[in-house]
């Protein structure tokens, strides 16, 4: 092999490899690598593909349950939902690209996760997203919000999948690193799921989809590099999404899978051809030989290095049954997509790349993955914050005023401006659209339904990683429960700063521990996920943000709950214990300007007990109106139920021993608000009592106002005005 270019330490550095990592590679292959080989290993061994900082800790997550068909390790997780159907889902981040070019960064993020799902043989039926931006008055924020939201819609709407849920928030710690986490959910037959592992020696390896250009070269490396002010220079790596091509790719792939020609399939995501080809070979204990002269290229004179690292979108790699090439090609031509046989599987366990008759790379295929660096990075448990006594927090002049400010604040305000740009109704199965606790999507023609949600409370994770990790899982579980769903499994997207800093690593480990404990206790295994590290600019890291995407099942989708008050004179019942926990609450942060104290602890046993109780009430048809209490506590939850239903409520109960503002705005976990007729409520209180579940009758629905204890009256119309106004006004340029 020729070394056209000398491999200097500088070049190694530019590839994001640490000197010892490079030494490890040289030792592994016993010679100096070619430039192409250096490119390949830099892609395989970077954080994004190798999980070198997180792998060790991810192993501790519970990933098994009788209904789990495929856990972490494939393109997406797969769970059994009965009737021979499987739900296939995963969440993935596109944070760094979206900061550099918000529209294209978001589109390609959505495109990538949709591909992960249909690569497994599933037809996408829903998409969700979880977004975090810098402070509203940061000069970049508006531009980033409008670009990211337009991009998510632009891709999903054209592809034809309903975007049914997500989350969005603002915080100064995201000023230099926004978060764009996209989740896709698909349906497949349990006996028709496709995997990445190649089988059979000498089988054709086929390239499908769009042509290869110089897009995103070093994208994978960029996604693992900390920003500095020169990052703007990384711009030429921006990839452009083509939802039209993806839609054709979806239809062509599913048609081809039906034909029985597909042995293995892998989408070309981060570090495109390199990662996909190596994964297919390594997982199947086979070698792979590629002839790059056959790769469909969009641009003249592309080098082997460029082809191997290109992140052009809407591309797939498949291993086909020999003899079925012609049939497969016909299907792809019909959909107007490229199809080329670019290599074959071998028994050599080597990854061989040829270009213009020359061998450009010849590497041991399994070691590229298995021998990737694995770090147990030094970590420091962060210093825990003291518990804040409710009495020590000054009450507002007026609870009504405080509530009005909270429902109209950037984080609590209505996100209608966002989800109206997403087609959330296509496919005609959206039973609960954005704005509920969890989205509900009917499965085919029913009777089943899926409950979907994405959650995490970064300020909790910052204050106490373990409790914060637990809370993220508990909140997802609670949101699914609140609509009547049985939580089945999660995908997680761990967004953190620079893992080479012990306090960041400590936070990551703490969150993973909390997630693991909660998933274990709630029987809510992790089946897929993604890690995004180095979300840090000039030494300032983001808030730790382990986003949890939860999936639950409704056996009869017609039996579910929504949060809107539906009738006057309904009793409003609170389930769960209230200590008036104000530490790290929205009240303390937004109204007192104090991001302080320990976050509310999560009692997983109580979570489960309270949630199972509420779910049974919904499933047995006793209640149809449920909302969980989270940011802003009981008060904000009540306001949301009133605004959604256009019906007010009068809250008379105010328990002994808890200051009123702490009772109203405290963020104690494991709580739900229910509304049902008064006789029903009596039974529910009785049942709860018998089971030792804290339950309290708060008051009655009715009228056009929310009346808080102490006769503070605030009209639903006023709440709604404040709630709906902030985001459109902000995006229209009004000062934050």
């Amino acid at each position, binding site marked *: 092999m020729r070394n056209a270019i000398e491999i200097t330490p500088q070049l190694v550095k530019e590839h994001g490899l640490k000197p010892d990592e490079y030494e490890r590679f040289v030792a592994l292959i016993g010679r100096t690598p070619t430039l192409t080989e250096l490119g390949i290993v830099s892609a395989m061994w970077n954080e994004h593909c190798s999980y070198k900082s997180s792998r060790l800790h991810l192993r501790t997550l519970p990933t098994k349950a009788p209904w789990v068909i495929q856990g972490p390790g494939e393109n997406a997780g797969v769970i059994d939902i009965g009737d021979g159907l499987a739900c296939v889902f995963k969440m993935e981040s596109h944070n760094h690209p979206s900061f550099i*070019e918000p529209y*294209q960064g978001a589109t390609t993020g959505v495109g990538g996760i949709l591909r992960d799902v249909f690569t497994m043989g599933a037809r996408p039926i829903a998409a969700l997203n979880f977004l975090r931006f810098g402070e509203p008055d940061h000069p970049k924020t508006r531009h980033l919000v409008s670009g990211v939201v337009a991009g998510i819609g632009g891709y999903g709407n054209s592809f034809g999948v309903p975007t049914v849920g997500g989350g969005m928030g603002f915080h100064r710690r995201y000023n230099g690193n926004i978060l764009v986490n996209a989740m896709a959910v698909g349906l497949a037959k349990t006996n028709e799921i496709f995997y990445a592992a190649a089988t059979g020696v000498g089988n054709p390896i086929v390239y499908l989809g769009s042509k290869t250009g*110089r897009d995103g070269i070093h994208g994978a490396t960029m996604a693992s590099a900390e920003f500095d002010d020169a990052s703007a220079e990384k711009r030429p790596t*921006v990839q*452009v999404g*083509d939802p*039209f091509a993806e839609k054709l790719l979806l239809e062509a792939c599913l048609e081809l899978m039906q034909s029985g020609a597909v042995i293995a399939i892998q989408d070309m995501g981060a570090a495109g051809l390199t990662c996909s080809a190596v994964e297919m070979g390594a997982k199947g204990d086979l070698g792979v030989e590629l002839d790059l002269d056959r790769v469909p290229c*969009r641009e003249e004179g592309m080098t082997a290095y460029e082809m191997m690292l290109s992140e052009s*979108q809407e591309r797939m790699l498949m291993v086909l049954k020999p003899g079925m090439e012609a049939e497969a090609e016909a299907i792809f031509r019909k959909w107007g997509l490229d199809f080329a046989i670019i290599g074959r599987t071998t028994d050599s366990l080597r990854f061989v790349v040829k270009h213009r008759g020359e061998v450009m790379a010849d590497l041991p295929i399994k070691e590229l993955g298995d021998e990737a660096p694995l770090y147990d990075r030094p970590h420091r448990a962060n210093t825990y914050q003291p518990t804040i006594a409710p009495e020590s927090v000054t009450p507002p002049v007026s609870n009504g005023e405080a509530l009005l400010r909270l429902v109209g604040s950037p984080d609590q305000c209505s996100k209608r401006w966002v989800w109206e740009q997403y087609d959330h109704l296509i496919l005609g199965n959206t039973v609960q659209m954005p704005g509920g606790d969890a989205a509900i999507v009917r499965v085919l023609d029913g009777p089943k339904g899926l409950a979907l949600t994405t959650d995490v409370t970064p300020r909790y994770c910052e204050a106490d990683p373990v409790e914060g990790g637990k809370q993220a899982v508990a909140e997802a579980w609670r949101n699914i429960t609140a609509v009547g769903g049985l939580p089945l499994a999660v995908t997680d997207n761990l967004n953190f700063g620079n893992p080479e800093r012990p306090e960041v690593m400590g936070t990551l480990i703490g969150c993973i521990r909390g997630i693991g404990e909660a998933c274990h206790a709630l029987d809510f295994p992790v089946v897929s996920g993604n890690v995004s590290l180095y979300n840090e600019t000039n030494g300032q890291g983001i808030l730790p943000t382990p986003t949890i995407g939860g999936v639950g099942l409704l056996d009869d989708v017609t039996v579910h709950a929504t949060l809107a008050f539906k009738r006057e004179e309904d009793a409003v019942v609170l389930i769960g214990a209230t200590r008036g926990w104000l530490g790290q609450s929205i009240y303390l942060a937004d109204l007192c300007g104090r991001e302080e104290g320990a976050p509310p602890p999560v009692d997983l046993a109580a979570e489960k007990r309270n949630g199972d109780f509420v779910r049974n009430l919904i499933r047995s048809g006793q209640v149809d109106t449920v909302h969980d209490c989270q940011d802003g506590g009981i008060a904000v939850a009540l306001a949301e139920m009133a605004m959604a239903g256009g019906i007010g409520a009068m809250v008379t109960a105010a328990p002994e021993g808890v200051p009123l503002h702490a009772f109203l705005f405290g963020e104690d976990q494991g709580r739900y608000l229910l509304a049902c007729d008064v006789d029903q409520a009596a039974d529910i209180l009785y049942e709860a009592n018998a089971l030792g579940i804290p339950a309290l009758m708060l008051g009655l629905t009715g009228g056009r106002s929310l009346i808080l204890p102490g006769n503070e009256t605030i009209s639903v119309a006023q709440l709604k005005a404040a709630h709906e106004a902030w985001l459109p006004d902000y995006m229209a340029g009004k000062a934050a």
Partner: protein
Amino acid sequence: MKARVTVTLKTGVLDPQGKAIEGALKSLGVEGVASVRQGKVFDVELDTADRAKAEEALKAACEKLLANTVVENYRVEIA
């Protein structure tokens, strides 16, 4: 004063629209078209007579809004 701003994709950046148009022209039997890349034009009326001011305004418009300089180039012509 009148001006025209032309915004085109940087070379190498994927142009899905251009690709779709090429395909459509072929199937419509239009011969001889090898490739198409799509861009935007903006015909701008300026309410200043001062050329320098105008150029400055247009440059600002391009940088701030009309062009996405991450993937696009722009050109300003003042009539």
